């Protein structure tokens, strides 16, 4: 398992003077489910791209298991940190669903029965087992997104980073993503997800990190981050608390970040 530490990370894209990341620090232990939230352009995607070496710090450090990520090749980081892009079409290229999912683990040295097992497991987890021979571009956008998730899952990296995994997903798709996150965390893998879906965040994650303008402004459990005391900070980065949290606060029920916590608080009255 892998520990991640981000130390005073600054990132300036070559063309502008904007500090996409402006001194971000946090540490993550293995097996946690962490959601990264905040307004568009607050630096969420930039931050996660540092975790697998796609971007290199302007200053500061990213430590993966104590080793500086900047000193490691992208290939070596890829064994430990799997990143699923927001837009699946940026990572899909194979002619079949199975071929797409095989590519990553094959490059990591999986072969024979091990390769089959990890590919089958990943296809099954996202509900694409019956589409192994389908051309990825015959799948609709939401299933292509699940395919991109499966192809990273199959690499069995100890860290899984998901950029907006629920966008474009319907009710069942969101459930799929949630069960993938839960199963990965139950195996001791660390899951970091960028999301604007606050219900998904509140119900499926242990810890919520809130960003604004390249900085970290809140970091805590869903109960604390979505509690009324945090709303001013949340709204400063254009995040609305989940509906259940807003209603619970208005009814004086305390912190009720999830539907379940709201209903049980009402029932206990």
């Amino acid at each position, binding site marked *: 398992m892998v520990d991640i530490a981000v130390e005073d990370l600054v990132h300036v894209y070559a063309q502008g003077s904007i500090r996409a990341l402006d001194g971000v620090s946090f540490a993550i232990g293995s097996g946690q489910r962490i959601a990264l939230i905040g307004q568009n352009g607050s630096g969420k995607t930039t931050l996660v791209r540092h975790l697998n070496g796609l971007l290199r710090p302007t200053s500061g450090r990213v430590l993966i298991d104590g080793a500086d990520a900047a000193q490691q090749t992208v290939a070596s980081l890829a064994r430990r940190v799997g990143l699923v892009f927001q837009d699946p079409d940026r990572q899909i290229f194979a002619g079949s669903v199975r071929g797409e999912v095989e590519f990553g683990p094959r490059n990591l040295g999986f072969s024979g029965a091990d390769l089959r097992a990890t590919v089958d497991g990943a296809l099954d987890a996202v509900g694409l087992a019956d589409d192994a021979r389908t051309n990825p571009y015959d799948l609709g956008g939401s299933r292509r997104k699940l395919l991109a998730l499966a192809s990273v899952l199959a690499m069995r990296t100890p860290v899984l980073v998901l950029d907006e995994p629920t966008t474009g997903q319907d009710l069942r798709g969101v459930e799929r993503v949630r069960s993938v996150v839960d199963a990965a965390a139950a195996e001791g893998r660390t899951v970091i997800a960028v999301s604007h879906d606050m219900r998904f965040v509140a119900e499926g994650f242990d810890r919520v990190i809130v960003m604004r303008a390249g900085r970290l402004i809140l970091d805590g459990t869903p109960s604390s981050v979505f509690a009324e005391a945090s709303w001013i900070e949340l709204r400063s980065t254009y995040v609305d608390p989940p509906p259940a949290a807003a209603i619970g606060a208005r*009814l004086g029920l305390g912190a009720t970040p999830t539907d379940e916590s709201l209903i049980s608080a009402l029932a206990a009255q």
Partner: protein
Amino acid sequence: MLTLDGISYRYAGARRASLRDVSLELRDGEVLGLVGASEAGKTTLCLVASGLAPRAIGGQTVGRVLIDGTDVAAEPMHALAARVGIAFQSPTTQLSGVAATVYEEVAFGPTNLGLPRDEVIDRTARAIETLRITSLAARDPSRLSGGQMQLVAIAGLLAVGPPHFVLDEPTAQLDPAGTRLVADAVARLAADGASILIAEQKTDLLSGLCSRIVALDAGSVALSGDAAEVLADPRLRALGVAEPAVVRLARLARAAGIEPGRLTAEVSA
């Protein structure tokens, strides 16, 4: 008025039809919501309603699409672009790829309509103002975050200013502030007489925005009618569509033996 009259559509090379006998009327000044599970046909319907399918992407159609009484099949593509504008699900598909700045990107559409220079400048300025992206005007569109790109893509569409709009999950990557800007822009367009077809997974957004909603299931219209009625219809979940928060929480409360009145009053407050 944009009319789909008995539309069935099959993609080139596909075994089965993606739309089956779909008829709907989009009236001027109206926002019509389109919901359904993934691959129920929402994106396909958007492509057909905008005239891109089958003419730009192939495939076979039965039935007719009429824009203000004219069959789209009889309209030259460039003329069609001025009458119905489409926002694709992925903003990277939407952006021209040739503009060096956001300003030029937004101006791309009206410039290509051959409008006088002053008119282009005026429309571009207004679209940028409406979506509050003035601070991005000098940036490179390909360097924006996913959400910022989505706002730029929609601004480009506003600048073209067609009387009919087809929006395919226009807020998928947006934070709540961006989502509200798009919703406000849509409401204002409708108030000015435009007609807007909007496919969305976010039913909370649709409940405040649409007068009517059509739910698709496997390419056919499954539910259609007054927005509030369709969104409260218990069959919606079986179609794979997430209910609005107010409907979901009321259902959960009832299941727990709690009178949902107080709770729903808080949601709608």
